[in-house]
């Protein structure tokens, strides 16, 4: 054909839009002007939930404008990842809800003894209260030796319950912290 790709572009720019084979492309260019186009990007990442480390692809909506906040719109298993080949467990499949969730707590809350509701609490105050109660409870319930005189160094007055969206990294720190306190009632829910 005598019409090159460059000619095609020039023709399009001049308004006499024809395809490289001479088809009338004007309707296509007219429709193109009316299209609502959304740009997404695909980011390969690793599921944070357990140590299996399944590959995920995170779809983010946003035109990369400086004042636009990218929005995660979809998370799917990475079909090219050798561990999961596109599959995800139910927790991994709901990963988008972990990233975007209007029920997510954005500040610490406390429910006082005898109360039927949760109250907001400042971070500093929350940390202070937790530290004080941990110290008090641990001191009161620490078991250094068992009934047969064996050293056990257990803290039986504290238990830890994790949540299903706790990440692998958080759970690592939880185990390190709780074991250093002697906590044995430890449940991190690091499973489906």
């Amino acid at each position, binding site marked *: 054909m005598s019409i090159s790709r460059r000619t095609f572009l020039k023709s*399009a720019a001049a308004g006499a839009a024809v395809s490289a084979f001479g088809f*009338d492309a004007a309707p296509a260019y007219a*429709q193109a002007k009316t299209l609502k186009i959304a740009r997404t*990007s*695909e980011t390969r990442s690793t599921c944070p939930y357990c140590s299996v480390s399944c590959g995920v692809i995170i779809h983010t909506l946003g035109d990369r404008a400086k004042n636009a906040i990218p929005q995660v719109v979809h998370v799917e298993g990475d*079909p090219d990842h050798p561990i999961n080949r596109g599959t995800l467990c139910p927790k991994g499949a709901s990963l988008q809800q972990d990233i975007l969730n209007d029920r997510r707590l954005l500040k610490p809350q406390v429910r006082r003894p005898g109360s039927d509701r949760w109250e907001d609490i400042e971070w500093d105050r929350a940390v202070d209260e937790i530290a004080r109660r941990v110290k008090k409870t641990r001191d009161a319930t620490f078991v250094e030796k068992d009934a047969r005189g064996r050293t056990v160094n257990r803290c039986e007055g504290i238990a830890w319950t994790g949540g299903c969206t706790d990440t692998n990294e958080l759970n690592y720190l939880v185990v390190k912290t709780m074991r250093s306190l002697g906590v044995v009632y430890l449940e991190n829910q690091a499973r489906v």
Partner: protein
Amino acid sequence: MRDSWDDRIRRAETLSGEGGAAEAMLAFFVRLLRIQKDIYDSLRNRRLTGEIAADATPEMQLAPGLLTMTVSTGPPALRERAERLQSNAPFEEIALPFWHKPSDHDFFGKVLVQPYLERLAAQRVRPRYRDHLRGERRCPFCGGAPQLSILEEHAAALESGGRQLQCANCLSPWTYRRVVCVHCGEEDEHQLGYYRSEEFPHLRIDSCETCRHYLKSIDLGKLGLAVPIVDEMAGVALDAWAVERGYEKIELNLAGM
């Protein structure tokens, strides 16, 4: 996955009947697909050698329907060339140059060779006496460039959601990684952009800022009825949108878009 010529014809008829910016192109494509189907069918009971000159059937040798149809219903540029070819020896002039050096600007060569290469692929007979480019971004069977990308339906199999590329020349699909530019191999996800429009929910433009090339993806998870090579053409408005923004298509389709 592989769709039949009948699937393609039916889908093109349906989409052409729906109107839209690609209506005229699809109407022409329906006639083109019927001719290609005849060529494909003419090769059914032949023991193919992989050498096009030896395997050519009368349908390919004379290409009568193709040239007549183009003269009567094609766009002016193609009509002019078809008229010139009608008075010469078409097969040598049309098919052999494309066979030896495929180009997405060689309309008649591509139309004639596509069904032959697809038949070779179906019979697993390697094309002979032609050099073809190799590499993971080239068709492993014939070395063709990718015409489009197909996103598999997630529910189709346990391990799915992968991408296949469809060869522009033999129409064979082959598996290729996601989040990689199909043209230059760019893997930096910040350089790769995906553009969708509500008007074509199962189509998207996969673009690369590094090489400024693009191709269209057909998401079968969004529309399982889609026949990739036909639906790709139906979305020419997306091509126009991409070209206006300076992107160059990896391989033009048979509408020249």
